[in-house]
């Protein structure tokens, strides 16, 4: 249970992330877990959801290395000559979530292996615009 009642929404998700916690929801009716907080259980539609803290450990399920970047990533110095890696992580508790993957060589994607163990990256978190990121364990 959370220490204080927070709305089951993205604002709360990113507030928790700033605090160093990966918080999703657990359904009290069917025990379904979702890494993305939402007010209705996506499995059984129950309203009885509660906050659930994920360990931050998972596995890289798939990824891409992006060279044609959105404007915001371009402003951070990414682009044709400096791609970045994003993908889908399967958390050890089961749910998946989209995230950046740091600590890999995005210029050589053939060297990045799916299936590797990854952990939540909290260092260098931008407090204004926090981004969910993982790095190889």
């Amino acid at each position, binding site marked *: 249970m959370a220490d204080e009642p927070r709305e089951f929404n*993205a604002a709360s998700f990113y507030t928790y992330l700033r605090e160093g916690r990966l918080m999703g929801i657990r359904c009290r009716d069917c025990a379904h877990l*979702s*890494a*993305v907080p939402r007010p209705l259980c*996506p499995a059984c539609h129950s309203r009885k959801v509660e906050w659930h803290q994920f360990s931050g450990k998972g596995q890289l*399920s*798939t*990824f*891409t*290395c*992006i*060279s*044609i*970047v*959105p*404007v915001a*990533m*371009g402003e951070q110095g990414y682009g*044709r000559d400096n*791609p*970045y890696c*994003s*993908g*889908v992580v399967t958390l050890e508790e089961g749910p*998946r*979530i*989209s*995230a*950046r993957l740091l600590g890999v060589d995005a210029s050589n*994607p053939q060297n990045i292996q*799916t299936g590797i163990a990854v952990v939540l990256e909290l260092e260098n978190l931008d407090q204004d*615009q926090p*981004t*969910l990121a993982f790095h190889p364990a």
Partner: protein
Amino acid sequence: MVASVKKRRLGRPVSIVGAGMSHFGAFRGKTSRDLFVEAFQDLMDNLDQGIDVEDIECGYVGNYSSELFEGQGHTAPIIADWVGMTPAPVTRIENACASSGSALREGVMAIASGMYDVVLVGGVEKMTGLPTEGVTDVLATAADVLYEVPAGLTFPGIFGALAKAHMDRYETNLDHLLKVGIKNHNNGALNPKAQFNVTIRQIMERRQARAEQRGETVPDWKDELDFLNDPASNPWIAWPLRLFDCAPITDGASCLLLVSADIARNFTEKPVQIAGMGQASGRPLHDAEELTSLSAAKHAAAQAYQMAGITPQDVQVAEVHDCFTIAEIIATEDLGFFEPGEGPRAVDEGRTALTGDRPINTSGGLKSKGHPVGASGVAQVIEVFHQLRGEADARQLSNPNLEVGLTHNVGGTGGTCVVTILRRG
């Protein structure tokens, strides 16, 4: 395949009696309304029996994002005015890249309900007014802006991740992806309205000729695959996807005239029936059932097959949503044309080529014909309409008994899919 879906049927049959399309490409100075007028005039010019615009009772226009692309909202009444339909009711439908697939569906239901007899459906998008980065940002808003976009995922990025998952799970490789593009350009080279009506080989040979003209070193690519494997000619967009794996940024419009089937012969001797229709919603990739398939496509296909009373094996020609080459491969699996993981081999064996047993994207697909996102769904239907009527010119399939065709129109990264089955007669 999805096991079973409720049997649904139209309240009364609906026919397509006319089709019109603008040229697809990059047209400086042309806005949505100009593009749509071009498509509409094409429709009016090619109707077997003419119609007065006053007799079109209602319209649905697919458009993804005229606000962000052009700074213009509330597009439908402007288009109605420009084609002369005011004061008929016209409604804009937005379902990302499936906007006009959905607009078609709304038009069909409007007639099937008995409320209208003659309905215009279409789609339009003006995309080239923004630089590539701006277009990337606009397209990304079709993904989940709270959880996918902040993770850096772009539209090509999400399909890149799907491609990587497909490569991990099956025998799919980068050459399979490139071969889809080569095949679609071979078809698009035969389509005078295509943005790139040119084969990959022609593109390669032109670059060699240009280098020679300029006295530069002439690249010694030995074939299309060699050319496409050269990072200088085919740079990465979102690994494992390269430039030639991605549909282009396009301006264009498309439209169809729908009528109640009982009056179809007043307009043409060769109507095409809406035999089946399905539409479904799906979740973002991270919440999808599988990383190698779009669940909305499977659901929409099951609905459409059920309504039409056919199986995937009965489909003789199909236009599928190849916004990226991997998307075509996955589409042919989700639609049940090939078993999961067998799509790449079908490409290798030429089965999806114009001369294959399962021709896919005879128009050139989104890859070669172009992808003005809001116009693409109806443009797919236009190609099948022409194939079934035997008027696809140089692209016409040799099968003299073409009866059944299908279109598969995906919105965003699978949040929406519309599948439509068409039957001659």
